[in-house]
């Protein structure tokens, strides 16, 4: 682990609205782990999924503007984003811009040409690879003992593997290992990389009710008290839409859906406000109250 970890940070649009708590917990956890996040000045939307469904040059230009801005930053080792959809766009653009012909087409749309030189990583990948579960363990302030979680990665964090180049594409384990490092227990969850319904919540809510419903059912069936995610869209579908899902499927889930950064933060002794626990739709408090207090004291106080 290098002594200084400095990154260009791309929060993504949802960080300003529906996933505020992912953003604030990411910033807090990274700071606690010695990772310096420098927000890309005046970053704009990467195009998310809508742009590539219209045209790939448009999509790469929207993502590319941000890559170009990051390239102007001093002394950063990579671009980090918490959101897998942003990650996919930034990574796809970086890969495609390697082709000079395509790059020329994209640059026609941009004010400042983009070179796509910086690596792009998810916050999950950076915490897992650049810090690592073993370095997290000694920093634990409160062990999450007794907390049973279904780890859900979403469909595009690891796929396609050649592009995402991180963890296993059928059975990713990075989040499991981080949760394990802070004392929580992950249950078997075979739908780790199944799609939750993505951005169809508005246009085709029935799809989200069906696909996210299956995820909640399996998590409950396998004994999880809560789910842990790394994607703003997955979290929103499972948490904010949980009542809609329950109504459509005649279920009665009350399953908190955490961002992995919220749980890491809790274990590292960070405040609930910073972690945005109060911003979750399904209250996490009954589940959090159940965390056993064994080993809380003394074991590696916050540095």
């Amino acid at each position: 682990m290098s002594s200084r970890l400095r990154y260009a940070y791309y929060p993504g649009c949802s960080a300003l609205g529906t996933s505020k708590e992912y953003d604030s917990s990411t910033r807090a956890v990274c700071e606690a782990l010695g990772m310096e996040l420098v927000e890309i000045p005046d970053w704009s939307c990467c195009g998310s999924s809508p742009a590539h469904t219209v045209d790939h040059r448009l999509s790469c230009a929207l993502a590319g503007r941000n890559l170009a801005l990051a390239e102007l930053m001093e002394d950063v080792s990579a671009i980090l984003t918490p959101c897998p959809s942003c990650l996919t766009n930034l990574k796809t653009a970086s890969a495609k811009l390697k082709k000079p012909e395509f790059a020329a087409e994209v640059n026609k749309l941009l004010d400042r040409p983009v070179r796509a030189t910086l690596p792009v990583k998810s916050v999950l990948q950076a915490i897992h690879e650049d810090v690592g579960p073993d370095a997290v363990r000694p920093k634990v302030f409160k062990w999450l003992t007794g907390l049973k979680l279904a780890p859900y990665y979403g469909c595009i964090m690891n796929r396609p593997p050649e592009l995402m180049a991180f963890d296993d594409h059928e059975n990713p384990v990075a989040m499991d290992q981080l949760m394990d490092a802070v004392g929580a227990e992950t249950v078997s969850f075979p739908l780790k990389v199944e799609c939750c319904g993505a951005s169809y919540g508005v246009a085709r809510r029935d799809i989200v009710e069906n696909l996210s419903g299956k995820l909640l059912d399996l998590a409950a069936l396998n004994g999880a008290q809560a789910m842990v995610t790394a994607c703003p869209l997955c979290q929103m579908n499972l948490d904010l839409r949980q009542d809609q899902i329950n109504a459509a499927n005649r279920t009665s889930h009350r399953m908190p859906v955490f961002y992995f950064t919220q749980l890491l933060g809790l274990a590292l002794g960070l405040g609930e406000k910073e972690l945005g626990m109060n911003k979750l739709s399904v209250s996490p408090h009954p589940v959090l109250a159940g965390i056993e207090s064994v080993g809380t004291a003394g074991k590696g106080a916050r540095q």
Partner: protein
Amino acid sequence: MNVISLSSTQDRNFVAQVEKESGQSVSQCYQCGNCTAGCPYTSVYDIPVHQVMRLLQAGQKQTLLSCRSIWLCASCQSCTTRCPNNIDVAHVMDVLRHMARREGHATEYGVKSFVDSFLASVERNGRAFEMGLLVSYILKTGKFWTDVDLAPKMLPKNKLSPFPHKVKNPEAIAKIFERFRQEGHK
């Protein structure tokens, strides 16, 4: 099941065009069905994804550009990841949707409206503005009750801002869209 007269509706140019735009060789597909087996959207598709590939090989342009599946594909990458012939199937689906759009199809009007509202919001503010996007979607589709039940869950948590978070210079992003349209795109 629809009966399709393959010979009278075959369009070879279409196949070549899809291959060119996607960079994928469509003839490599040997119909193993892996893509369909893993596709979480098969239950809402009118044509399962391996059949999309088959109809593509047979040059069935009209059937494909007017189908629902290409609008409902969520780009989840399951098919691409699991295709034994390394075909980037999700990319093919994306390209078919680009073509459908260019030719004026909107088979899943709600999905198209959502995409349009999203991009309009980005063009205006430089960033996606969730509340504005919802309002514009409602105006386009007339679906007034869309997600009103979510507002009480979001407003007190300060998650649904009534104002956009603009970038400093939204024109820089608007110009990207403008130049894109100048090249004849819609």
